[in-house]
Structure formats: structure tokens, C-alpha cells
């Protein structure tokens, strides 16, 4: 068990480093298509981290929703509007916007760091109960049935709204 945890830690640091590099490149690259592709690296790294945490359902959902649908939509939109290869100099934001972004980033880091340390403390991953997918679905369809149904109605309303906005007649 201990040896496996060491391997997990090494894998975590490698994937985390890749994700950080990818995330920095998303906001610094001069090519909007490259930014979307670096985002692919960040999101697939997140999926890999979920697998390391034995949350395979969340990982697969991440792949299906973010990589399979949202990124494809991004790429599709970029290719339909500005398909030229090469760099684009007006991608950068103004200096004031950069400072606001950095401030929000630091605030988020502090908030999430605090809540993680507060919530889990010294608990190691091996001590936690690994939740199987069947248990997740059991709790969604019994304890959280009402919020789940409300959410699906909300999504349906958003879907119909999108169609209404996009219609031309």
C-alpha cells in the first residue's frame, strides 16, 4: 500500500507540473488556437488526477464533457471565426485587467487552500473511504433526487432558451 502511495505521489507531481505549465501557456500564448490546445492539456491532467484519487466516474465525465464536448466547441468556434495560423498580437489584455486577474487568482488560491486544509487536515488519502460509482449513483437517485431533477429541468430550460435565441424567424 505504501509503495503504491509513493508511486501515486510521483505521478501526482509530474501531472501537476504539466498542468501548471499548460495553464501558464493558455494565458501567455499569442495564438488563440494554441491557447485552446494547451487547455486540453490542463483538462486532461485534471482527469488524470481524478483517476489517481480513484474517482474514475468523475474522471470519465471530465473527459466526456470538457474534452469531448466543450473543447471541441471551442475549437469549432475558433476555426469558424478566425482560422488563420500564426500569431495574433492583440490577444493580450490591458495591464489593469492583468492585475485584477492576478488578484482573483491569489484570492482563489487562498480560499481553496484554506478550505482544503480546514476540511481534511492531516488525513491521508489511504485512510479515506474510496467511493465507488455505484454508491455515487445511489446517493444521487435517493438522497439528492430532488436537486438532481431540478437541475435537469434547469438545463432543459437553458437548452430551449438557446434555441429560441438562435432562431431567426
Amino acid at each position, binding site marked *: 500500500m505504501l509503495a503504491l502511495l509513493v508511486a501515486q505521489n510521483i505521478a501526482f507531481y509530474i501531472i501537476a507540473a504539466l498542468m501548471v505549465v499548460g495553464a501558464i501557456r493558455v494565458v501567455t500564448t499569442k*495564438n488563440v*488556437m494554441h491557447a485552446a490546445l494547451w487547455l486540453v492539456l490542463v483538462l486532461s491532467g485534471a482527469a488524470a488526477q481524478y483517476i489517481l484519487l480513484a474517482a474514475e466516474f468523475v474522471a*470519465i465525465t471530465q*473527459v466526456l464533457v470538457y*474534452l469531448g464536448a466543450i473543447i471541441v466547441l471551442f475549437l469549432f468556434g475558433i*476555426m*469558424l471565426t478566425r482560422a488563420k495560423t*500564426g500569431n495574433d498580437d492583440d490577444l493580450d489584455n490591458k495591464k489593469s485587467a492583468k492585475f485584477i486577474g492576478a488578484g482573483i487568482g491569489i484570492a482563489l488560491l487562498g480560499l481553496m487552500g484554506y478550505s482544503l486544509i480546514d476540511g481534511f487536515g492531516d488525513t491521508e488519502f489511504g485512510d479515506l473511504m474510496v467511493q465507488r460509482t455505484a454508491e455515487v449513483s445511489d446517493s444521487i437517485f435517493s438522497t439528492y433526487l430532488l436537486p438532481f431533477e431540478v437541475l435537469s429541468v434547469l438545463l432543459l430550460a437553458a437548452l430551449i432558451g438557446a434555441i429560441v435565441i438562435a432562431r431567426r424567424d
Partner: protein
Amino acid sequence: MTLLLAAFDPPYWLSTLIKVVVVSAVVPTTALILGMVFLFKIMSWMQSRLGPQEAGPRGTLQLLADGVKFLQKEDISPNGADRWVFKVAPLVVLMSTLLLYVALPTSMRLVVADLDVGVFFVLAVSSLSVIGVLMAGWASANKYSLMGALRAAGQLIAYELPMVLAVVGVIIQAGTMSLNGIVFAQADGSIFGWGGIGFPYILTQFVGFFIFIAAVQAELTQPPFDMPVAESEIVSGYQVEYTGFRFLIFFLAEFATAFAFAAIAAVLFLGGWAVPWLPTSSDWYYVLGPIVLFAKVMVVAFIIFWVRFTYPRFREDQLQSLAWKVLIPLALLNIVVTAVFKVVL
């Protein structure tokens, strides 16, 4: 022999190494088999010609010779291309194919990773190939490539939905999303109390099977759904600027994905690696499982390629309306009927 295999329990690193080697050997082999048997031989027989004759006995080594030819060619990237994205794109498509093989069970324990949500995993990773196709089309800096990639993305998104919905019927009936669990459910089932051949789900889910095969055809961008690579309209679409081994990778990925999808269809609808009368816990499946699955895959692949070789190409609007107006409502109806029967019976 079978007992030896059953007693073999390697350490973690060794089993991982074996799995990596086996998957990376199996993927090109399956592509070779499908390409050889269907693309070269059966296609030529259906079209009343002989097909390749010279390389090897009855031309069976032609595809191997073609592969070597591709490997010898120069690795060219076009002048205006975004070189890095251009070079990585085929690898992204191939990665999606390799991931498909991870969840594929060839017997109870001969599987790379026996996931609880195997079906879900397969559907999720199969949608990753679109990213590679879009990368290839954009990075080529070529109008035909870009149009091909846009067509491919529109088509793959449209046919992802009927494919997922067609599988839901099987999942409801089996009560599990594990691919091995679905095999067990079919092997242990019985038809009105008669358990002679188990209960292959094609008997009740034939609508799902039809929709799944049609969606697979579209996902593979094969005729009659081959607008993304239509050579007479957009000169092979996103593949037009690729030569040598990068083109070979696209080719490998297409045929290996065809094999993987045929295998998934065999698992979901035809009982997978199990045979009737032999209980699923038998040690014989270490040898028999892959052979049985392979036989069923060849049957499903024959249907896929039969349609490929005999039907003309759809128009783009016909393709989209087939997906959204016919296949998706049909699949939803199938889910409703299956769910009602599941509750009533």
C-alpha cells in the same frame, strides 16, 4: 496450458508492462487484419474484381508492403502549416484508439482495466479523436483540410448522441455499466426460462444494435457517411496534407477503431467472449475468450464494411437530418420501451 495461465499472477509493474506491450501490439494487428480481409479482399470480391494478387500468397501481404512503403516516405509538412500541431494531430487520434482497447474485455481476467463504468469510458475516449481531427484540419493551413475538419466535427458530435442513447437500452437491461458485467448478464440470462444460449441482447435490443452500427459507421467517417474525407468534393479533407507514417497513423487509427467498435458491439449485443454451455468462470476462457470475441468481431465488422462498400455517399444535410430526426428519436423510443419492460417484467 489454461491452468498455467490461471495461476500466473505477476507483480504490479510486470502486469502493467505486459498490458502496454499487448495493447500496442494488438492495435496495429487488428488494423492490418481488417484492412487486409475487408478493404482489400472482400471489397474487391463485392465489386467483381480480384484485388491484390502479387505480394504473398493470394496477395495477403499487400497491406504490409504498403505499410513499409509509407514508412520509407519523407515526413513533409506544408509551408504555411503550424508544424507542432500538424505533427501531433495524428498521435492524438491514435491515442483515442489506444484508450478504447483499455476497457475491452476478452475474458473475465484478460482485460487491461475492468472498470465499473466500462461502457461510459469507451464512449468518452472515443470522442477524443475529434480533437485530433480538428487539429489536423486547422494546422494544415489548407481550405479543403479545414472544411473536412469542420464537417468531421459536426458529424462526430451529431452521431455521438445516438450512439450513447443506443447503448443505454443495453445498460438498462443488464443493470450494469461494466463491460464484463454485461457479458455475465447475457451468459446467465434465459429466454422464457430456456437458458440454452443465454440471452444475447440483440434479440431485444435490435433497434439499439442498428442505431449503434449506423453511428459507428458515421464515427469512423466511412461511406455512406464519408463527407469529411470525400475525395471527390474536398480531396480527402483533413488528411490531404499528410504523407508517410503520419498518414499511416490515421489509417491505423481508423481501422483499429473499427475493430474496437465492432468488439464493443459484440460485447454489448452478441454476448462478448462467452459461449453457451461453458460457465463464465471456466479457466478455458483464457484461451477461448479472445478467439470467440475475435469471431464475433469479424461478423460485426463484415456488416460495417458491407454497408461501406455498397452504399453511395449521403449529402451533408441528409446526414444531419438522419441523425437528429430519425436516429435520436428512435433511440429515445427504444429507451422508453426498454425501461417499461424492465419495470413490468
